[in-house]
């Protein structure tokens, strides 16, 4: 095991801090008055600065320092929180992210952001320190308006182990001195006799008289990292108290306690969660899952061998292993489950920025954040969901004046929900915007030659054309969407996750996109079938029923591949033909009816072997393009079987059906 890389540790820490910062900023944009949030944001910045300079990210530390200085004025109530401020603060946060990701590349880009930030916080007339000059940016130079006095008496005593923890009292005193002229007196009362003296412990306390007109917070900030454990008292100098005014007079005594409270609470919750959970590198989980997958395969082989053997001892061991493998598999899968809320959080920012850019008012509501999904799934859902949410806001949502004219509230709502339903998770994105325009989609589809003007299609069928490659109905192309890449990519991505996507829409009332996804990508119950001399797995969740191929269909009259299943016509595909197998066909061929979305298709196979738990292995690049297969799996006897891609088969059957019906129409006309 290698030693942890400090830069990597910082990056991880920064990721969490920046996320906390972003959430706090976004919350602030909804509630401008919440001081708690301002403090949260400030703490995140402060920690970021500290760890940044400690880990050698000097650019980050310098930038965050200026960011923090500006934000400090907000914290002190000197500058109001506004949407503009939140927007720029978010930009600044993004910039920090860039600085961390690619040190040395983006330094210059930060200046305009800082300038804008400082201009904003300086709006109420007080000159802000110029950005980029750390020395000038000290709060000491800003004019304090309340909670300050012309001098302070600061008495502090550090925790005994402070030096062991890396605190240097000299630096603290130095920082105090930076605030203004100081008289420092050491308090040596607690120094023990030499025999009891422990050279690693601090016995000294300090009594500092600071003659400077600085706010109390400036002093507290010096001790920001230590305040929980140390003794600290900050009192206005007695002779100046009267002049300090009534607002400063009654506050000082209780403020330290009060201000320390949120930090303590945060620390407590952090340590609590630290005790109950553990951070694990994602690759290790992947490795574990791979191993479990192989174990499941090996166990299946063992069970098969035990089944053929008369040895009682062997079969009892095989049963034990089977039980253990199942438990291990379930536990491993549950370890990989993460709440989808982590993903939802990211979209708040997206919605906020988009609404801003487009001049729309959008409220973002999320539900079911606690819904758990396999981590790979959550990662791979991010891009498709971004597309869908963008579409909802860019295309779906109307401008406030238009909404008002339609009798809606000016502020639209985009709702993102996740719920478990059986072995699936349903994620839906709905908006209360204008809805899909069926006419326009139709016109566009006709223009693209996808449908004929005579074709009669329901709105629901028309909506499906949105998923067609290169199809976009946005009248003007924006930077956000409307280039016609999007929904087809989304559809493919979702199908790649073995999920489905469905669109419903009502004109004037909004659009809803629903994704249905399996809980995990790694293991799937499959139905094993034989076609010729090859064995294939069909995901069991897609199988609706199995029938015998009627004798009338066996001969294979081409052009009419339909079955009558209790009054419904179901198209079918002869897998023997599709796979070009030479082996002689079975006398009694079977049809496996599979469904994808609303469509059903029959797959004609030679034999249905049975159910098998399959560990999905993705196909290499050499075979990924073939399309009919979504992956491969290893069977109990060690052979490889391909897994059929039901969505792909259904759509190819659909095309075949359309060709046939098109031909029939041609004959009729």
């Amino acid at each position: 095991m290698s030693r942890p890389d400090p830069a990597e540790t910082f990056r991880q820490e920064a990721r969490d801090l920046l996320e906390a910062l972003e959430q706090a900023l976004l919350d602030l944009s909804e509630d401008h008055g919440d001081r708690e949030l301002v403090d949260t944001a400030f703490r995140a910045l402060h920690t970021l600065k500290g760890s940044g300079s400690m880990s050698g990210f000097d650019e980050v530390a310098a930038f965050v320092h200026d960011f923090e200085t500006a934000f400090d004025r907000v914290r002190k109530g000197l500058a109001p929180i506004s949407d503009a401020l939140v927007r720029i603060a978010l930009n600044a946060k993004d910039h920090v992210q860039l600085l961390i990701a690619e040190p040395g590349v983006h330094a210059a880009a930060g200046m305009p952001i800082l300038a804008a930030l400082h201009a904003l916080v300086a709006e109420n007339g007080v000159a802000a320190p110029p950005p980029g000059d750390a020395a000038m940016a000290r709060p000491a130079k800003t004019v304090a308006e309340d909670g300050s006095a012309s001098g302070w008496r600061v008495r502090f005593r550090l925790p005994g182990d402070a030096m062991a923890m890396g605190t240097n009292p000299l630096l603290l005193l130095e920082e105090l001195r930076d605030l203004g002229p100081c008289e420092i007196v050491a308090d040596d009362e607690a120094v023990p006799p030499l025999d009891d003296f422990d050279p690693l412990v601090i016995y000294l306390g300090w009594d500092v008289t600071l003659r400077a007109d600085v706010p109390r917070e400036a002093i507290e900030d010096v001790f920001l990292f230590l305040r929980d454990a140390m003794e600290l008292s900050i009192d206005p100098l007695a002779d100046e108290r009267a002049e300090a005014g009534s607002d400063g007079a009654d506050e000082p005594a209780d403020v330290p306690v009060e201000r320390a409270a949120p930090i303590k609470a945060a620390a407590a919750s952090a340590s609590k969660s630290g005790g109950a959970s553990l951070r694990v590198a994602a690759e290790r989980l992947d490795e574990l899952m791979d191993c479990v997958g192989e174990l499941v395969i090996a166990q299946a082989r063992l069970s098969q061998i035990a089944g053929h053997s008369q040895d009682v001892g062997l079969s009892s061991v095989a049963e034990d292993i089977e039980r253990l493998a199942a438990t291990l598999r379930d536990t491993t899968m549950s370890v990989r489950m993460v709440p989808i809320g982590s993903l939802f959080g990211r979209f708040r920012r997206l919605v906020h920025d988009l609404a801003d850019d487009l001049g729309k008012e959008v409220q973002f509501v999320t539900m079911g954040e606690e819904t758990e999904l396999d981590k790979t799934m959550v990662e791979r859902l991010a891009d498709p969901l971004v597309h869908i949410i963008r579409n909802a806001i860019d295309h779906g949502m109307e401008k406030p004046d238009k909404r008002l004219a339609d009798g809606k509230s000016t502020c639209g709502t985009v709702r993102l929900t996740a719920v478990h339903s059986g072995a699936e998770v349903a994620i839906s994105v709905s908006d209360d915007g204008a809805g899909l325009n069926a006419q326009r989609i139709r016109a566009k589809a006709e223009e693209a030659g996808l449908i004929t003007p005579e074709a009669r299609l329901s709105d629901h069928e028309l909506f499906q054309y949105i998923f067609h490659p290169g199809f976009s109905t946005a009248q003007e192309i924006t930077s956000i969407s409307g280039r016609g890449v999007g929904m087809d990519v989304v559809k493919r991505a979702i199908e790649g996750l073995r999920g489905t996507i469905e669109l419903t829409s009502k004109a004037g009332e909004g659009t809803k996109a629903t994704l249905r996804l399996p809980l995990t990508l790694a293991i799937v119950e499959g139905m094993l079938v034989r076609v010729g001399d090859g064995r294939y797995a069909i995901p069991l969740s897609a199988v609706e029923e199995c029938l015998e191929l009627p004798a009338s269909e066996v001969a294979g009259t081409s052009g009419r591949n339909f079955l009558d299943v209790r009054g419904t016509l179901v198209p079918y595909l002869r897998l023997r033909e599709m796979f070009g197998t030479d082996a002689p066909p079975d006398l009694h061929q079977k049809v496996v009816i599979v469904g994808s979305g609303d469509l059903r298709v029959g797959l004609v196979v030679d034999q249905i072997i049975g159910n098998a738990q399959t560990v999905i292995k993705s196909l290499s690049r050499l075979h990924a393009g073939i399309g009919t297969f979504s992956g491969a799996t290893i069977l109990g006897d060690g052979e490889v079987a391909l897994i059929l891609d039901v969505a792909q088969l259904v759509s190819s059957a659909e095309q075949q059906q359309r060709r046939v019906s098109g031909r029939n129409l041609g004959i009729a006309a």
Partner: protein
Amino acid sequence: MTETLLETEAVLRGASRPALTFALQGEIFAIDADTVREILDMPAITRVPNAPAFANGLINVRGRVVPLADLRVTFAMDRPEPDADTRIIVIETLLDGEENILGIVADKVLDVCDLEDVAIEDAPQVGMRWHPEFLLGIGRYAGDFVILPNIGQIFADHLNSLNRETN
């Protein structure tokens, strides 16, 4: 990609590493032995319907699903049924920058030799049945010609032709 090819070439030409030699339809081929993971007896092969003949099989290599490639297709050779000498050489190679494990069919695995002893010449541009791009060169070893196939280029070419088909 190019970089890796150059590396492979350098390795073979620099001739500091051993090479694995094997036979395909009477010709002797040599590949960098360091890329070889293992050599297997003929396992059960799962055919991938509608895949080009060059790579239309899958095998199970210790719990991994590994595609099987047949260089005899690339070099336009006959493909008789496997016999007692047929082996699968499992190699590691980069496909589009991704590490991949592949199986290669060999009619017979011969030897591990040091290519230092092999005089390598550039593949002649004329008088050859084979695409010169698919060769790193031709060498002589123990009185025979040895063909050094450019595995990376062969697979890259195959992937390109797949992409062309899908487009």
